[in-house]
C-alpha cells in the first residue's frame, strides 16, 4: 500500500467530508453585509466575535486526504494547522487516536502542503486550532475507523459488527488484522456516513497530560524549521529594504558589491534589492557594500506618533453601549489615562523562505501561519495558477501573529525565478525588528462613577489603537466595512462586568504609517491593563477589597458565573491578602477572551526601582483541556510573555526609524525575570476545548500594576511599567 493508493486523491468517488459551517469570517457574514450596517446590530456582532469559535473553513475536507495509512501500520495526519510551539500537533494526535483507535505512538502529524488539497481558509491563529478541529477531526477519525472496519470485514470474511478496534488492529473472535492489512489494495475510499461520536468519558488520550509528540526532535536538534530547509543547488540571498518609515529607494550603487566574493547576481527592484550569493555570509557581506539613497517624505518621531494616535481622533465606533454616557466633567466622575507602546514579535526564528521556481511551477518551504494566503500571494506575484504553487509548511520557531503575513515568500520566489535555481532568503534580526508587523501602540481613557452604596455604577473605556485586524492579509476588507471597527483592537476592550448600571466602550482607530497587526492576544493585553488597573483604583478609593469589588459587579448568567468562578478560585488558591507587607504585595486582575475567563494573583516585590514578579497564581477556564500539560505550558508562556511586554518591551521611533534593532537593546524578560512559582488551576466550564494560547495574557499587566500600587502608592499607567 503506497501513499498514492491510501491517500488516493484523484480516484476516490464518494468522499465523506465534514460540513463547513458558515460563520463570522466566512460567507455567512458577507451575505449579511449588505444590510447589517446599523450600529446596534454591529454591537451584537461584536459580542459574537468575542465568544464565537470561528468554525474551520478550508478546502480538502475529505477524511481520506487528512488521514493517511502507511504500510507499516502507522498513520500520518496532514494538518491544515501548523505547529509553532502551541502543542496543536499533540492535541490533534490525541483526538485522532481516540476516535480512530490507534495508539498515539502510531501517529505522525505533518503540516499539510497545499499540494495535498488541504488548505486552511484562514490561518493558524487566534488560538483556535484545537477548538476549531475538535469536532471535524473526531468526525473524520470515526468515519475512517468505520471504513477500515468495513474493508477489514471483507478481508476477514466476517460481519462488520463482530469487529472491535484498538491500537490500529481489528479483532473479530480469534482473528486479528492490522489497519494496514485491511486497506491493502484499497484504491477507492467510499466512506460511510459519520458514526456517532464516543462519549467524552470513553476517551483514553484526550484529557491526559501526555508528552508532546514533537519533544524528541526538538531536544536532539533535528532540522525541522523553515530556517533549516534546503534544496539541491540552493543559493543564499540577503535583501535591502527601507529602514525609514515610508521611505522609497531613490538610487543604489551596486558596483562594489558585485565584485565581492561569492556574489552570483544582484537584482534591483523599486523598493528592494536582492543580493544572491553562494553562501549567506557572502550575500550579507556584499549587501553591506551597497550604497543607497532614500527619499524620506516625512520623518516620524515618538512625539509625532503620540500626537497622531490618541483617543478622540480617527474612526470612532462605539463597541459597547448600555445606559447614557458619563459626563467627563460631571460630579464624582473619575478619569484616568493609560498607554501602551509599539511591541515587537521578536520570535526567535527569523522570517524566511526557500523557493524554487522552474518550468512554470513554484515550491516554497517556509515557517508560516498562513499557508493558503502565501500560496495566493506567490501565485499572483508570479502570474501562476494556484495549483502550480506548492507551499510546504514547516515547524515554526515561534509565531505569535508575526507569520500571519509571510509575503517575503514572494521575494524568495522572484529571486529564484530570475536565477533559475533554488534561493533561500531570510531576515537579519535588524530587518526583523524594523519590518515587523508590530503590536500597535494604544491610548486609553477610563472613566467611572460610584453610587452611594460604594458600588461602581458606571464604567467607560475609550481606546485608540492602530490596525490589528484592519488591513490584515487574512481579513477580507468587506469585514472591515461590515463591522465598522477593528475587531482585533477590540479584544478585551469591552467591559465584562454585567452588573453595572452603565457601561460603554468606544474605539478610535487609525492606520499608522508603519505596519501593525496581530500580536499574541491582540488588544487584550493593553485593554485589560487599562480596565483592570482602573477598577482596582476605584476599589482602593472606595476602601473595598478588590476581589469582592469585582465579584459584586458580576451578573448571574452562565457567562458571568464562569468569570466569577475563576476570580474565586484564583483568590482562594493564592490566599489573596490585601495591602503590602514590606516591599511585597499581591495584585489581582481578571479578563475574559474568546470565551475563556482567566484570573491571576501575582506576588510582586520592589527593590529600588526594580519590579520583580515572584509568584503567579492563575485560574483559567479553558473548557475541555485536550492536553492539560500543554494548556499549562500555554499559560506559563503567556504569563512570561506578558511580564516581558508589561515590564520590559518597547519599540520607539527615532528620526524616522524603529528602534531597537536587536535583542538585549529590545529589553525582554529573561530567566532572571521569570517568576519562580507559577501555579495554574484549570477549570472546565464547558465540555469542549476553548482557545488557550492567548486569554492568560489578559490579567498579568494590571495584576502587576495593582501590586506595585500597594507597595509604592504609585499607579503606573504606561506600559512598560517603570518606577524610575
Amino acid at each position, binding site marked *: 500500500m503506497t501513499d498514492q493508493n491510501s491517500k488516493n486523491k484523484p480516484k476516490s468517488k464518494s468522499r465523506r467530508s465534514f460540513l463547513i459551517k458558515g460563520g463570522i469570517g466566512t460567507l455567512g457574514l458577507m451575505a449579511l453585509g449588505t444590510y447589517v450596517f446599523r450600529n446596534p446590530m454591529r454591537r451584537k456582532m461584536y459580542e459574537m466575535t468575542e465568544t464565537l469559535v470561528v468554525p474551520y473553513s478550508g478546502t480538502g475536507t475529505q477524511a481520506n486526504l487528512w488521514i493517511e495509512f502507511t504500510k507499516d501500520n502507522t498513520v500520518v495526519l496532514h494538518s491544515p494547522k501548523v505547529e509553532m510551539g502551541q502543542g496543536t500537533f499533540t492535541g490533534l494526535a490525541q483526538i485522532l487516536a481516540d476516535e480512530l483507535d490507534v495508539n498515539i505512538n502510531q501517529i505522525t502529524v505533518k503540516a499539510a502542503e497545499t499540494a495535498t488539497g488541504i488548505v486552511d481558509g484562514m490561518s493558524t491563529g487566534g488560538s483556535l486550532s484545537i477548538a476549531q478541529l475538535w469536532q471535524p477531526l473526531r468526525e473524520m477519525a470515526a468515519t475512517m475507523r468505520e471504513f477500515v472496519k468495513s474493508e477489514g470485514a471483507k478481508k476477514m470474511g466476517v460481519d462488520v459488527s463482530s469487529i472491535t478496534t484498538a491500537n490500529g488492529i481489528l479483532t473479530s473472535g480469534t482473528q486479528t488484522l492490522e489497519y494496514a492489512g485491511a486497506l491493502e489494495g484499497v484504491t477507492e475510499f467510499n466512506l460511510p456516513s459519520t458514526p456517532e461520536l464516543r462519549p467524552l468519558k470513553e476517551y483514553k488520550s484526550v484529557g491526559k497530560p501526555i508528552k508532546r509528540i514533537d519533544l524528541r526532535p526538538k531536544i536532539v536538534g533535528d532540522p*525541522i*524549521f523553515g530556517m533549516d530547509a534546503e534544496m539541491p543547488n540552493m543559493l543564499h540571498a540577503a535583501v535591502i529594504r527601507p529602514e525609514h518609515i515610508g521611505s522609497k529607494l531613490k538610487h543604489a550603487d551596486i558596483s562594489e558589491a558585485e565584485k565581492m566574493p561569492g556574489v552570483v547576481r544582484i537584482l534591483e527592484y523599486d523598493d528592494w534589492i536582492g543580493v544572491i550569493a553562494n553562501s549567506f555570509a557572502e550575500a550579507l557581506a556584499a549587501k553591506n557594500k551597497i550604497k543607497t539613497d532614500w527619499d524620506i517624505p516625512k520623518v516620524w518621531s515618538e512625539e509625532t506618533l503620540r500626537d497622531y494616535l490618541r483617543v478622540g481622533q480617527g474612526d470612532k465606533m462605539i463597541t459597547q453601549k448600555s445606559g447614557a454616557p458619563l459626563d467627563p466633567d460631571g460630579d464624582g466622575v473619575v478619569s484616568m489615562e493609560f498607554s501602551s507602546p509599539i511591541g515587537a514579535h521578536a520570535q*526567535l526564528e527569523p522570517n524566511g523562505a526557500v523557493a524554487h521556481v522552474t518550468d512554470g511551477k513554484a515550491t516554497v518551504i517556509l515557517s508560516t501561519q498562513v499557508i493558503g494566503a502565501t500560496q495566493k500571494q506567490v501565485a499572483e506575484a508570479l502570474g501562476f495558477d494556484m495549483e502550480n504553487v506548492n507551499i510546504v509548511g514547516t515547524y515554526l520557531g515561534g509565531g505569535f501573529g508575526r507569520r500571519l503575513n509571510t509575503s517575503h515568500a514572494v521575494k524568495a520566489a522572484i529571486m529564484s525565478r530570475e536565477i533559475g535555481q533554488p534561493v533561500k532568503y531570510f531576515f537579519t534580526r535588524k530587518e526583523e525588528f524594523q519590518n515587523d508587523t508590530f503590536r500597535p501602540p494604544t491610548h486609553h481613557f477610563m472613566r467611572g462613577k460610584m453610587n452611594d452604596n460604594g458600588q461602581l455604577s458606571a464604567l467607560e473605556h475609550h481606546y485608540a489603537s492602530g490596525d490589528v485586524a484592519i488591513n490584515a492579509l487574512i481579513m477580507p476588507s468587506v469585514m472591515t466595512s461590515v463591522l465598522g471597527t477593528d475587531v482585533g483592537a477590540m479584544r478585551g476592550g469591552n467591559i465584562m462586568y454585567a452588573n453595572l448600571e452603565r457601561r460603554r466602550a468606544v474605539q478610535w482607530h487609525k492606520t499608522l504609517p508603519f505596519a501593525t497587526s496581530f500580536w499574541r492576544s491582540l488588544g487584550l493585553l493593553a485593554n485589560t491593563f487599562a480596565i483592570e488597573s482602573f477598577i482596582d483604583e476605584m476599589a482602593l478609593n472606595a476602601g473595598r477589597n478588590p476581589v469582592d469589588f469585582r465579584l459584586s459587579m458580576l451578573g448571574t448568567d452562565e457567562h458571568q458565573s464562569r468569570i466569577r468562578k475563576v476570580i474565586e478560585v484564583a483568590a482562594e488558591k493564592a490566599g489573596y491578602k490585601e495591602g503590602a507587607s514590606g516591599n511585597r504585595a499581591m495584585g489581582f486582575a481578571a479578563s475574559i477572551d474568546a470565551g475563556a475567563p482567566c484570573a491571576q494573583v501575582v506576588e510582586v516585590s520592589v527593590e529600588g526601582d526594580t519590579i520583580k514578579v515572584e509568584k503567579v497564581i492563575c485560574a483559567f477556564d479553558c473548557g475541555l483541556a485536550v492536553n492539560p500539560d500543554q494548556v499549562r505550558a500555554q499559560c506559563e508562556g503567556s504569563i512570561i510573555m506578558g511580564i516581558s511586554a508589561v515590564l520590559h518591551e518597547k519599540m520607539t521611533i527615532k528620526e524616522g526609524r524603529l528602534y531597537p534593532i*536587536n535583542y538585549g537593546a529590545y529589553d*525582554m524578560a529573561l530567566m532572571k525575570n521569570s517568576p519562580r512559582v507559577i501555579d495554574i488551576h484549570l477549570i472546565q466550564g464547558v465540555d469542549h476545548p476553548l482557545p488557550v494560547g492567548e486569554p492568560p495574557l489578559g490579567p498579568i499587566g494590571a495584576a502587576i500594576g495593582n501590586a506595585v500600587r500597594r507597595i509604592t502608592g504609585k499607579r503606573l499607567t504606561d506600559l512598560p511599567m517603570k518606577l524610575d
Partner: protein
Amino acid sequence: MKVSFNINGEQKTVEVSDGNSPLLWAIRDGVGLKGTKFGCGKAACGACTIHVDGNAVRSCSFPVRMAEGKEITTIEGLSNDGVLHPVQQAWMDEVVPQCGYCQPGFMMATAAMLDKIPNPTDEDIDNNIINVCRCGTYYRMRKAIHRAAELNTKKNNSESTQ
C-alpha cells in the same frame, strides 16, 4: 581559505571566502548540522550556542578561522551513542520546549554551566543562563536545570563507584 576542526568527534574541513565570517554558517551550511540556530547574529540571544574546547560560545560571533584545530560540540553531539545527555533527559522529563527554536542554545549553555557549577542555585541559573526564549519556557527550564544537575550527580556517582 580552508578551516579544519573536530566537530562532534568527526574531523571536518570547510571552505570559506572570509576567515572572519561566523563559525555558525560553517557549521550550518558548511558541515550541514542545523541544530545550531541563527537568532540574531550579534551574540544577543544565545540560539547559536555551541561548545568550543568545552566552553560555551555564541557561534554567530565567533570567527570561523579561530576554530582551526578546535574541538567543537553542537546539540547533535551532546548525546552519546543515542543516550541523551542528562540535560536533554531533564528537558524531556520536564517537557520544556514549545516552538523549540531556542532550545538547543539553552541546552548547550546549561551543559557548559553544569561543568563549572555542578549544583547551581537559582541565582547561579539567573546569572549564567541569559539566552532568549520568546515562548517563555524559562519556568520549566529552571526546573529542568535543577533536575539535570541531579541526574548528572547520580551519573557521576555511579561512574565513580564502578
